[in-house]
């Protein structure tokens, strides 16, 4: 049986499934319910400095993008950090950690950008005996306008400075939560590492507007007729977060930095993908908000079952295995050839592959064969783009078949088996040592 236990930045947890700092981790009641459901840890919803409580809007805080059957695939919020008194949160954190000593208890923090503020809050948080802290450098709305959250995360110098203060003033492990609202995630990740961060977690939410209310002629949702940008999460942000995780995992300066993956994780498979890119834990929020805490049962069982099937005993056995396969476009093999293949037994004849190919520019799928409705790939035209497989409503009906060495691509005449990247391609004027294509012998 697979062992799901993890040790992340020195913090031990029975499984890698943690709840991200968010509404579900705002108070004892919820966190206890989460632990009962089986979550391996939580990042307590962000605490601010002591003082008058945070004020949230009483209009809608959340918006969403729905797919068929109203499945929530994108979600956004304009909620601020915890609006409960600091001392209340601290007492609850202390109590929950004491009752649930085996679970990871990390506390998210966000205070103004001066050393004294951080020093003060760190002491008070240490009193809870939590396992670590996460610095909220990502929140894109409400707090960033007050010089916190993303306003810090977008400036690498601030990231490094605040991280260093925290490392100086506490014995607790420091996780830096990164914002995706940057042109490259590497500078802030590098800054966190330089500041001494024990780990980074990513990503926070993506700056977004979920829609426009065409009756009110305002953003949707709106608060009394006006709306503002919020932070988006949910399945639609997973590709953004995965790419940022991979960027950090494969960058020479940041490689090896412990990563906690966040963004669109709904199932064990989503989590396994983050782990395969090198994450040590994953954090979940949207799926828990949409479906409730019990989704973790599927995640734990699914991950364990898959690990058993693959023969992985611990998470470290496969963690990061996919990261070395991430590269830049110019290193892809241009002599690699796939062609689409349509399984006629599975085909339901909807014709979506045909029209997609027809209207997208390759015209490589028939709609009639000998006057009969039938969808077949025309290998002479197929560029192997994967569009047909993407639009096909039947899973595995259309597959991209790798062509074996010796196959002559009827579209290009190139013989499969070579390995030329753009760096070696004759069409690249910068190629140092261009290699010609292996063409089929015209006599054959």
């Amino acid at each position, binding site marked *: 049986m697979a062992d799901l236990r993890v040790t992340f930045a020195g913090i031990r947890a029975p499984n890698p499934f943690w709840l991200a700092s968010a509404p579900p981790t705002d108070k004892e009641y919820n966190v206890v319910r989460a632990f009962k459901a089986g979550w391996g840890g939580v990042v307590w919803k962000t605490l601010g400095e002591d003082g008058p409580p945070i004020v949230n809007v009483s209009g809608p805080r959340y918006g969403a993008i729905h797919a*068929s*059957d109203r499945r929530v695939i994108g979600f956004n919020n304009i909620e601020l950090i915890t609006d409960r008194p600091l001392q209340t949160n601290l007492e609850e954190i202390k109590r929950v950690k004491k009752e649930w000593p085996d679970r990871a208890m990390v506390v998210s923090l966000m205070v103004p950008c001066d050393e004294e503020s951080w020093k003060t809050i760190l002491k008070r948080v240490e009193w809870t005996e939590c396992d670590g802290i996460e610095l909220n450098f990502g929140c894109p709305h409400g707090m960033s306008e007050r010089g916190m959250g993303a306003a810090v995360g977008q400036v690498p110098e601030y990231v490094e400075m605040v991280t260093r203060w925290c490392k100086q003033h506490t014995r607790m492990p420091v996780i830096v939560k990164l914002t995706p609202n940057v042109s490259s995630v590497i500078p802030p990740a590098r800054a966190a590492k330089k500041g001494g961060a024990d780990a980074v977690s990513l990503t926070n939410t993506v700056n977004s507007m979920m829609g426009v209310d065409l009756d009110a002629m305002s953003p949707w949702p709106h608060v009394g007729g006006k709306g503002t940008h919020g932070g988006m999460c949910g399945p639609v942000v997973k590709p953004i977060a995965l790419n940022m995780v991979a960027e950090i995992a494969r960058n020479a300066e940041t490689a090896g930095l412990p990563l906690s993956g966040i963004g669109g994780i709904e199932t064990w498979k989503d989590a396994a993908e983050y782990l395969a890119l090198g994450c040590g834990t994953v954090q979940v929020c949207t799926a828990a908000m949409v479906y409730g805490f019990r989704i973790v049962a599927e995640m734990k069982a699914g991950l364990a079952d898959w690990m058993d099937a693959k023969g992985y005993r611990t998470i470290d056995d496969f963690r990061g295995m996919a990261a070395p396969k991430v590269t830049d476009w110019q290193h892809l093999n241009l002599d690699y050839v796939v062609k689409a293949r349509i399984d006629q037994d599975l085909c*339901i*004849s*909807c*014709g*979506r592959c*045909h*029209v997609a190919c027809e209207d997208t520019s390759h015209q490589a799928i028939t*709609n009639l064969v000998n006057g009969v*409705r039938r969808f077949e790939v025309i290998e002479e035209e197929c560029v192997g783009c994967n569009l047909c497989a993407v639009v096909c*409503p*039947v899973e595995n009906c259309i597959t991209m078949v790798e062509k074996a060495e010796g196959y002559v691509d009827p579209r290009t005449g190139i013989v499969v088996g070579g390995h030329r990247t753009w760096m070696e391609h004759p069409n690249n004027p910068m190629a140092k040592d261009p290699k010609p294509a292996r063409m089929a012998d015209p006599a054959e």
Partner: protein
Amino acid sequence: MADIRAGRLDAAVIAENFGDMLPAFSANEARVAAERCLFCHDAPCVTACPTSIDIPLFIRQIAAANPIGAARTILDSNIMGAMCARVCPTENLCEGVCVREVSEGKAIEIGRLQRHATDAAFTAGRQFYKAGPPTGRHVAVVGAGPAGLACAHKLATLGHTVTVFEARDKAGGLNEFGIAAYKATNDVAQHEVEYILAVGNITIEYRKRLGRNITLAGLKRDHDAVFLGMGLGDTNDLGLGVEPEGVLDAVTYITALRQAPDKAALPVGRRVVVIGGGMTAIDIATQTKKLGADEVTIVYRRGKDQMSASPYEQDVAQTHGVTIRHWMRPVEVVAIGGNLSAVKLEYTGLDGGKLVGTGETVTLPCDQLFKAIGQSFVTADLADAGGQIAMSDGRIAVDAERRTSLAGIWAGGDCVAGGQDLTVTAVEDGKRAALSIDRVLRGAAVAAAE
């Protein structure tokens, strides 16, 4: 003594029995149903629709929260989209070939979605059509059923003036008088007629029947073109001699039932036998059951697969408690004192592909017997055509444009040969004929101007 009486069930129960058999979708149900559509390329459902409605488009419009736009898409191809949504045998047409039917055995509910869209437009009072710029041409249409009204509507939108001659005192044809009541609740057939007539330039002259108080020659003389859409005027007979009290024509009974303000007042037998295997047989059997008949038996001379009623319709009858008996035919109606008391049935079989009686008989006691063995065209109506209109299989022969053999006369709907006797095919006939008439009238106008 035959047991035939009204009020076998409480009026409230009868009212409930004749409510919508397949209720309207809620907006949420419609969205969920619409989102299953794959938006197929060259979609099989469109090919299967006699009126070629762009089904993937209208379903996408419903999914995109535009049911009224969806209604326009439907009505552009089929002005009787509201009734067709209710009466089309969709399992034999669009839904039967839906790729989700073929792949999963669960078609998109196209008929119900079509109803959702057309209901939305009717409820909102959205009129999409208006009479076209006047051409000065005048067309006579015989029959205010689906074929005639579809033809009249298209002609009016193209600018022609239309006079419709209707034998009854109400328009709608079989939609109004023939379809089972539970498929056309809330007077939807009349709402549809009103919607069609609201386009303007269409006048209906009621109680005008071809061969009785109007003549084809007269219509031709007074109009620039004539469209015949009078349906089938006669019902087929059992050929068993003098019929006692209690033997009724199903079509006539259904007509009375559709028009009855109080269905509880309709007399119905305790034991009912229906002879026939088509939609009319199903409709009369199911409706007599809904009126409170105790035992209802459909008797069909061939097997289940040969019944022209679709499997879905057969299921409807059976789930209402109707018994369907195959391979039997009536050979004698038994009467006591002039009142029906039983029907003697002979078992049948095939002998070299030919239907034959086996000689074995069984007698089924019954109080009421309905004949539902098809309708036929009254050829006498075409007398005085000023020439002989070519016929085929007892109905009017037409070409692809729905032209008859006589210049200036078009025909469509159940009165023409080769059709499927469906509302939807009648609508298509009317539409095609109107376009053909328009081409001819405009051509004549061009020729006259030259």
